């Protein structure tokens, strides 16, 4: 019997002035999700079920940017995306452009299990959701007051930054704009409202790894924009060696095929999990900002980011457990 391990994240890149109360809320949510995953692993649930379960919980809570609480498009709507991958056999499923599906990660799982394809998007994905009978909500359900305010500020203050006709150097428009902007909403810096993504990786007692990632995408994104989260090999990857979920500047993650690269340097270069994670964050991002969580089939867990903080938590079978935001 191997040893289980689990890690969760709620996005990388946190405002340094994040109020204490919000920090506590975030930590409580991460702890709750971690505990949910730990009990599932202890009761022998396969890793693929565990990561889905945990990400559903993160999606259902409005705190982080996925499911309820998703960032808004330039039109003020929600377009969610997610992907999931099972290490054994490397089966995978992904969805993009969801507007009514309560738990995108579960639809990604259904694409993996019940469709002949690996990736469905927009109206076709919504139609598939209806045929599969998953739980649906009006688009309003996903939209929080915080996010409406954030979009308004983003549009007013940074219309140029968000104008795609003018290329950006860094593409995490919401976070970047907010970082540079002294603007506040409800007395809080607006970047408080621009978190990134949620994700979970787990390895079960059988040594099976799995990874899942879900997001509302970038605040004020163009409709139709696809980020790294649903892309197998970029935002999410699992194989028989490890499971990886990434967050941060989507475009930098895609160029680096960041999640696959953790596994690739383990497979082709013989690095250990932590070495592999350090390598990709240090060497593969070309100045981009990102963070990731990973587990190996041996029950190791690793987390690393080059952003200012990352909402994360991890636990292993030997009793180690950690929930943190800063370095």
């Amino acid at each position, binding site marked *: 019997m191997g040893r289980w391990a689990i890690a969760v994240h709620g996005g990388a890149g946190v405002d340094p002035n994040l109020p204490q109360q919000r920090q506590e809320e975030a930590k409580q949510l991460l702890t709750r999700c971690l505990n949910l995953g730990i009990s599932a692993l202890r009761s022998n649930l396969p890793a693929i079920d565990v990561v889905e379960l945990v990400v559903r919980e993160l999606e259902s809570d409005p705190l982080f940017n996925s499911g309820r609480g998703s960032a808004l498009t330039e039109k003020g709507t929600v377009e969610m995306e997610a992907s999931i*991958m099972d290490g054994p*056999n*490397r*089966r*995978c499923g*992904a969805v*993009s*452009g969801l507007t009514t599906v309560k738990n995108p990660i579960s639809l990604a799982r259904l694409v993996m*299990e*019940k*469709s*002949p*394809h*690996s*990736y*469905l*998007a*927009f*109206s*076709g*994905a*919504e*139609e*598939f959701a209806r*045929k599969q009978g998953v739980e649906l909500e009006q688009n309003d359900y996903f939209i929080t007051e915080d996010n409406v305010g954030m979009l308004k500020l983003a549009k007013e203050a940074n219309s140029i930054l968000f104008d*795609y*006709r003018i*290329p*950006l150097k860094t*593409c995490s*428009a919401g976070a970047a704009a907010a970082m540079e902007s002294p603007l506040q909403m409800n007395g809080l810096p607006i970047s408080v409202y621009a978190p990134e993504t949620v994700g979970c990786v787990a390895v079960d007692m059988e040594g099976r790894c799995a990874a899942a990632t879900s997001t509302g995408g970038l605040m004020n*994104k*163009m*409709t*139709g*924009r*696809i*980020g790294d989260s649903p*892309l*197998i*090999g*970029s935002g999410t*990857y699992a194989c028989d060696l490890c499971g990886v979920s990434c967050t941060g500047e*989507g*475009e930098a993650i*895609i*160029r*680096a*095929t960041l999640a*696959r*690269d953790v596994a*690739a*340097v383990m497979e*082709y*270069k013989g690095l250990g999990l932590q070495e592999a994670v350090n390598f990709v964050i240090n060497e593969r991002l*070309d100045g981009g900002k990102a963070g990731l969580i990973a587990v190996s089939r041996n029950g190791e867990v690793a987390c690393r980011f080059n952003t200012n903080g990352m909402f994360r938590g991890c636990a292993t079978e030997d009793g180690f457990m950690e929930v943190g935001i800063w370095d």
Partner: protein
Amino acid sequence: MGWAIALHGGAGDIPPSLPPERRLPREAGLRHCLQIGVDALQAQKHPLDVVELVVRELENHPNFNAGKGSVLTTVGTVEMEACIMDGKTKKCGAVSGLTTVVNPVSLARLVMEKTPHIYLAFDGAEHFAREQGVETVNSSHFVTPENVERLKQAKEANRVQIDYTQPIQKDEKNESQIADGDGDSKLGTVGCVAVDRNGNLAAATSTGGLVNKMVGRIGDTPIIGAGTFANNLCAVSATGKGESIIRGTVARDVAALMEFKGLSLQEAASYVVDECVPRGNVGLVAVSATGEVTMPFNTTGMFRACATEDGYSEIAIWPSVQK
């Protein structure tokens, strides 16, 4: 060191008995597109421009599954996707779910150059196309009579396999074993990779997807690292069963084996095709920064062509007699 170029028009179960009337136009298309690419490289165009130019030409060719000639979704519509990537900068652009854009690869290039994003899809991508003023036509322009017939056959032959309300085998997603039909472009994708004398690399891939695919289905083509990848070592464009290529991160793995294991282009490409993806599932074309070229596949055949500066040139469909 010298320039090199390789292109493909899809890999799959292409029967060696393919009748001349189906084979010859495709061979002519490959030859024509290769020449365009060679001329462009000789005129010292940047590989990024070369692969875009060649893939546009392949998209315009009705016998390949991309642009005009794209296969049809289960409701008889066209949904095209494409991707382009520059090796040196690793800048990239991708599009999915296009219904009116004449040259998807050029829209992918515009996403790369004119937006803060990498990947736009469906209505948002169509909207962007209009804003950029690229050539669009009525969606019916892309539908060929041949593809209408192909969809009909696919529906008749394999209703159960593509009906997702029915249980399917868990590990063997028969994505492509749908159409029996003529078996010559049901898997099709087009792609081109090129390198210039200075070692600049680029890759581009474009497709109509899979016959009888579900509306909204995204395959490997637009996914960086799966169907398309380029860095400072090599450029790769893959074709075959989307599911297998995605899970094998095929294009990235060719580059990763060179980068992390020190394999040569040919060793890396052969390893991925032979060891990482089930037989009958994949083909790829790749060039290295030093001007090598390779075009391995584990399917019955692959429509392919290549040329290098030292005068080597090949246009082929099935395995070469001597390797």
